């Protein structure tokens, strides 16, 4: 049988074992209001860093048969402000700036002159719902070539007619499924879905896929990340 000891000795053994658990108390830092925000920022930062590591350039998002595509009228319209920012479609141009050899204004016809790619991919909203849509457009990587973008620059940023803004890491911008999308379900984008041009990125969460694009910039630095990101959502949110 076990060693015989007195009660005092047992108490001191027990106390020592209890004190070993003090590291658990460190988690209490999350309950301190001043520390909570920075700690959660670090946590989200670690998740974004891991997301970046997990992203594989050549790995394609699953694609679906036409029969699996959600009907067009069941494809949700999501925006932060207005369904239709009243873009002048006749005179619309995409402004290109930043680390590009041929900056300036590009017409939709110029973008449509690039090889067209159509794909049935899953669109996932940060809220939790998902739909499979049919999208058509030019590969962003082709457009970046067209404008002579420096692919060494780490970011592509966009601005929208409704004052929404977004940013993409260059690896995702160059991904073969990342589209400058001008068609959904074989028809030109409707105003609610971002006419005339939106981003469609099957490897990213929905809020990254900005609509009503007006400006595209190739950047070496970000002074802001994105409309939702700057309010506390994940910067990278790769799927």
């Amino acid at each position, binding site marked *: *049988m*076990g*060693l*015989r*000891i*007195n*009660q*005092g000795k*047992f108490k001191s*053994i*027990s*106390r020592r*074992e*209890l004190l*070993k*658990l003090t*590291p*658990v108390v460190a*988690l209490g830092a*999350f309950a301190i209001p001043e520390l909570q925000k920075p*700690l*959660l*920022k*670090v*946590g*989200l930062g*670690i*998740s974004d860093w891991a*997301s970046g590591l*997990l*992203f*594989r350039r050549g*790995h394609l*998002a*699953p694609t679906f048969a036409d029969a699996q595509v*959600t009907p067009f*009228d*069941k*494809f*949700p319209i999501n925006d932060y402000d207005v369904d239709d920012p009243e873009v002048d479609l006749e005179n619309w141009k995409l402004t290109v700036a930043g680390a590009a050899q041929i900056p300036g204004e590009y017409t939709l016809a110029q973008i449509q002159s690039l090889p067209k790619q159509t794909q049935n991919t*899953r669109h*996932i*909203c*940060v*809220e*939790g*719902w*998902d*739909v499979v849509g049919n999208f058509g457009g030019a590969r962003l990587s082709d457009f970046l070539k067209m404008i002579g973008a420096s692919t060494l620059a780490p970011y592509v940023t966009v601005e929208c007619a409704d004052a929404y803004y977004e940013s993409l890491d260059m690896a995702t911008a160059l991904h073969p499924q990342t589209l400058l999308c001008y068609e959904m379900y074989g028809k030109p984008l409707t105003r609610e879905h971002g006419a005339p041009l939106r981003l469609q990125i*099957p*490897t990213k969460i929905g809020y990254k896929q900005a609509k009503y694009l007006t400006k595209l910039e190739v950047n070496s630095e970000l002074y802001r990340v994105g409309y*939702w990101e700057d*309010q*506390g*959502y*994940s910067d990278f949110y*790769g*799927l």
Partner: protein
Amino acid sequence: MASRALEIEDAKTGEVTEAVYEHPFVVRLCHWVNAISLFVLVGSGLQIFRAFPSFGAKIPQKDLIHWPKAFVLGGWLGGALQWHLTFMWIYIASGLVYVGYQLSSGNYKQVLFVPRDLPGVWPMVRHYFFFGPKPPAKEAYNPLQKHAYTSAIVLGVLSVLTGLAIWKPVQFSWLAWLMGGFHYARLWHFLIMWGLLAFVFGHLVMVVLHGWNNFVSMFTGWKKDPEYRPE
């Protein structure tokens, strides 16, 4: 099993009480870290669920249930995601350390449900739920307890795998595919949470029923007056 036993002698009465070292330090540490992270993950998970409280289509949206604000954590979807994406690392880390320790130390034998435990399950169920006689305790955990703990660990692993499928349905597309796609992975993740909550409920009831010495042992490792004869 390296179970350590002591006899504690009361200086005044000379009475001798047995004590056994039941929970190694790493197990206790992981238990509490895991308990806190699970609490945070469930709270923030339910807040995330509030953003789309359904497992059907978005159009038309049929809501399943709306969680009262009092039972959720994070304040809003973005805040809840911050909590969820932070504590998932702590949860995963505590799980990995726990499983790694149990396997390398051999302590897993104390908790792992094996086929030989099967005949002992029904007598325990009969005792707990149908007023049957109490089967004699032979080791730290009875067969039903082992079953519960082993199931909880399996559910823990599944909670991480389904979570990964939701967080990275493209990079881990094979994982999402195994679960029936992103849509179903989300449902599995939710159901597994309820499985874990059912375990926690039963666990807490048992903690209350088994008294103070048992409760203290999860802090100090030492259980006074164990029901079984330590080796």
